[in-house]
């Protein structure tokens, strides 16, 4: 599966109502570490069917970012059954992201 772009329109369906755990990547175009992280997430998304990885642009979706209290990016949030279970801030390598998903 590829990384899914999420906006406030499809957030409820893609994240809250997802039957799989969701890794939410809050990012922005001006954020260098976010751009470093993107290919890592694409690679994981391509090899794992048991999780969904979604990308949210905090400039376009400031309300979602505010709702999740995001004040530093990249910010990865793991959501299970609609609830946040884990969070990590800053660039993470592949192993660290996989660890977050365990």
């Amino acid at each position, binding site marked *: 599966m590829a990384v899914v772009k999420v906006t406030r329109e499809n957030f409820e369906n893609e994240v809250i109502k997802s039957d799989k755990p969701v890794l939410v990547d809050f990012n922005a175009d*001006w*954020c*260098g*570490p976010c*751009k*470093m*992280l993107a290919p890592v997430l694409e690679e994981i998304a391509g090899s794992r069917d048991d999780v969904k990885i979604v990308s949210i642009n*905090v400039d376009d979706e400031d309300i979602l*970012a505010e709702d999740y*209290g*995001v*004040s*530093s*990016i990249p*910010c990865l949030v793991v959501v299970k059954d609609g609830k946040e279970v884990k*969070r990590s*801030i800053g*660039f993470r*390598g*592949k192993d660290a992201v996989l660890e977050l998903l365990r």
Partner: protein
Amino acid sequence: MKYDIVIVGAGPAGMTAAIYGRRANKTVLLLEAASYGGQIINAHKIENYPVEPHISGFEFATKLYEQAKELGAEFKFEKVVGIEDKGDHKLVNTPSASYEAGAVIIATGSDKRKLGVDREDELVGRGVSYCATCDGAFFRKKVVAVAGGTRTALEDALYLADIAEKVYLIHRLDKFSGAEADYDRLKARDNVEFLLNTQITKLNADKKLESIEVKSKDGTVQTVEVSALFVAVGRVPENQNFSAVIDLDDKGYAVAGENCLTRTAGIFVAGDNRVKEVRQLVTAAADGAVAATAAVKYLNS
């Protein structure tokens, strides 16, 4: 696995060293604990590097990475936990492997210095930040604080004064080292308040930072409501794992001159983790060239 040169750290110094090593036909491995590029990837715009007047930190790092890769440098994303000097060769150890090297260049740079107050780690990304230009935009029209007396603290406060409703600049001393001009510009701003001779003693938060408790030298304690605290109390060189093979000064910087030589033959240091006056991209790149050239000379002798 065996390489002519193993470089620890893929920032501007390490990747430049890789270019010089490969152009001298040596096999080169770069070991990096996080992402290639180092701290420069956080820079929104670089305006002081020759030739490229407005390149972003991300673009700079990526171009340098591609250049080193194209020349045949190998990258592995592992953290180096120790280096052993075996005389004619060195062992560079990570948690999962040990690499044999003819020569080693330590180019690990530096990491942020923490304030050292309770709950600091837990609140990173929930109000505590070490990068005003990265995270400042999340606090538009809010009240924020900057902690520190460094040049970066003053620059951060100026940057935030344009975005935030109000900025407190909190410093445990009553004067700032250098950057007088920035200090004067800050004093002229209506929305900047200085809390000098003052230390941050507590962070108050529920889900995110709500206020900080500060204590001044005369013993007064007060609570200041802020949405964010930007910590700018300096950086720490990342040499802790290498004291068996290189000398460190009292601040932890690797003792080596402009020639990048250390006390161990065949081990070199390059970039921000070395004792030096000017820590800039261009001086990091220069160190990379000097260290790699010295390593090549060492390998050929």
